């Protein structure tokens, strides 16, 4: 196996809070709760942690500028090397990637990786906090919103492959159903395809039940170098591949039907992990699903199936927990909730628990040895991918 990093890095503990709209806890408190849980599971104390990486999305959600500094105490960063990373919605999976290079480089033996989001602080709706991400000359004067641009992408994807809304709705049904077994889930629900199709139209073809909710929450992992991990646990989960990539910000100049940048990030991670045939070698995947169509879009970008093939696999039950290629057994962002950075990190935690066989009712049926987590963000242009093995 080709090893790019100097040292092998393991996840040895993970923790998370409930995902809810309007949690009483502050962002700092959420970080602390999840960090304490992850440290307890790793059998470490804060003094054993050599560096901290924080991942959190726009400052405008919490309404606190320089959020990294605001959250530092809760993340256990006092008097430690500390940095915040931010790549939009891709942050949640990029944060453990940044933690990985802290340890793989040989600079640190342990690293605490913390992801937080508190979206419900922003009134009347956090959607408005996104206004300033758009180009001030070309886009903002038109009154652009975030859902507009995702609806444009979803519609283009449906048009190119001739995909029906009924097929896409199955993702929402599956993920909300999976979330019934997740103790932190915000929107676990038993719904039908008809419920999705009958839900309020927000921005055609996006309807109410196609979208993940506004959430607060935190998720944390403890990373350790190989020699430390082997002392602390018999079940380390190795980070064997990482990849990240951004495409042009001129999003109206790209064909939105396919996320090429996700493919680039995946190729980088697969190469590092020595994976030649992703659908055969990946046992379980947590792909980014803030909208139901994104799960399908990302399965294709990750080369877990051919272009346009993801809806059929979903219909055939291949992506269910007991299927050949379980996708989002946690319940995903659609079911567990979407506190942006914490949601991506939740996916990494889920793969950790799945590969350790600790996922309880959510455990996938097949013997899962290799897992993948992926997040997506910025102006439909950023992909972050991590490959883990037990």
């Amino acid at each position, binding site marked *: 196996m080709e090893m790019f990093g100097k040292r092998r890095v393991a996840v040895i503990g993970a923790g998370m*809070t409930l*995902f809810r709209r309007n949690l*009483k*806890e502050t962002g700092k408190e*959420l970080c602390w709760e999840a960090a304490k*849980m992850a440290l307890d*599971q790793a059998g470490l104390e804060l003094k054993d942690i050599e560096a901290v990486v924080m991942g959190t999305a726009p400052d405008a959600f919490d309404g606190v500028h320089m959020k990294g500094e605001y959250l530092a105490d809760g993340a256990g960063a006092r008097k430690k090397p500390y940095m915040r990373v931010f790549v939009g919605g891709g942050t949640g999976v990029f944060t453990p990637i940044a933690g990985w290079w802290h340890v793989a480089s040989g600079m640190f033996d342990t690293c605490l990786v913390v992801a937080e989001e508190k979206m419900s602080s922003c009134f009347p709706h956090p959607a408005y906090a996104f206004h300033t991400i758009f180009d001030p*000359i070309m886009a903002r004067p038109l009154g652009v919103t975030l859902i507009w641009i995702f609806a444009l992408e979803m519609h283009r994807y449906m048009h190119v492959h001739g995909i029906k809304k009924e097929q896409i709705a199955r993702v929402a049904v599956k993920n909300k159903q999976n979330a019934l077994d997740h103790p*932190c889930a915000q929107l676990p629900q038993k719904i039908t395809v008809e419920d999705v199709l009958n839900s309020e139209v927000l921005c*055609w073809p996006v309807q109410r039940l196609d979208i993940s909710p506004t959430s607060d929450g935190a998720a944390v992992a403890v990373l350790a170098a190989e020699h430390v991990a082997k002392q602390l646990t018999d079940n380390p989960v190795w980070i064997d591949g990482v990849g990240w990539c951004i495409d042009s910000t001129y999003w109206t100049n790209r064909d939105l039907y396919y996320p090429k940048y996700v493919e680039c990030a995946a190729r980088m991670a697969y190469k590092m992990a020595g994976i030649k045939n992703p659908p055969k070698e990946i046992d379980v995947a947590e792909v980014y699903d803030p909208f139901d169509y994104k799960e399908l879009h990302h399965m294709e970008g990750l080369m877990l199936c051919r272009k346009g093939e993801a809806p059929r696999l979903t219909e055939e039950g291949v992506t269910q927990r007991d299927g050949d290629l379980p996708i989002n057994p946690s319940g995903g962002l659609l079911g567990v909730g979407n506190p942006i950075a914490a949601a991506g990190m939740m996916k990494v935690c889920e793969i950790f628990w799945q590969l350790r066989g600790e996922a309880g009712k959510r455990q996938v049926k097949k013997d899962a040895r290799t897992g993948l987590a992926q997040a997506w963000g910025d102006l439909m242009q950023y992909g972050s991918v991590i490959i883990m093995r037990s």
Partner: protein
Amino acid sequence: MSEKIKEYPGHRIKTADLRAGLVPLIRYKPEAKFAFSAGAAMSRFLEELKNGRILASVCKKCGRIMVPPRTFCEICFKPVDDYTYVKDTGKINTYSVSFIAADASRVKEPTIVAVIELDGASPGMGILHKIGEIDWKEVKFGMRVKAVWKPPEQREGAITDIKYFKPLKEGEE
């Protein structure tokens, strides 16, 4: 969620408490105002909108005619070679029908938004704009559209100098 962990932290605020104002709410309007530099290419683009023309830039290395125009080609990473005009007609690459405003509040009359590939630009070179003079149920992929401009005296050098794009009938240019 590991099955080894029995309880997960977090307490939800009751909706009644939120409504009763028991949660500290800071209303704050930032005094920060921004004057955005449009840059050399986009300043010309905005000036030309006043004349009812759409400016594009040309990179002779990759051969692309780019809208919106830019001073450098992000692929070849060199200055663009020239500027040209593209037509104010094109076709719908993708579209959406929005029933919400920017703050997620609901609107009565939906807005049709689209990525429009302009004639004369390289294939796939689109801009974001609105579609008008058509019922939203009638909009189609690949539909030919044309810009509807504000009257010259009302133009101010903004993307909104084009009010929207309207469908072209067969044979119309």
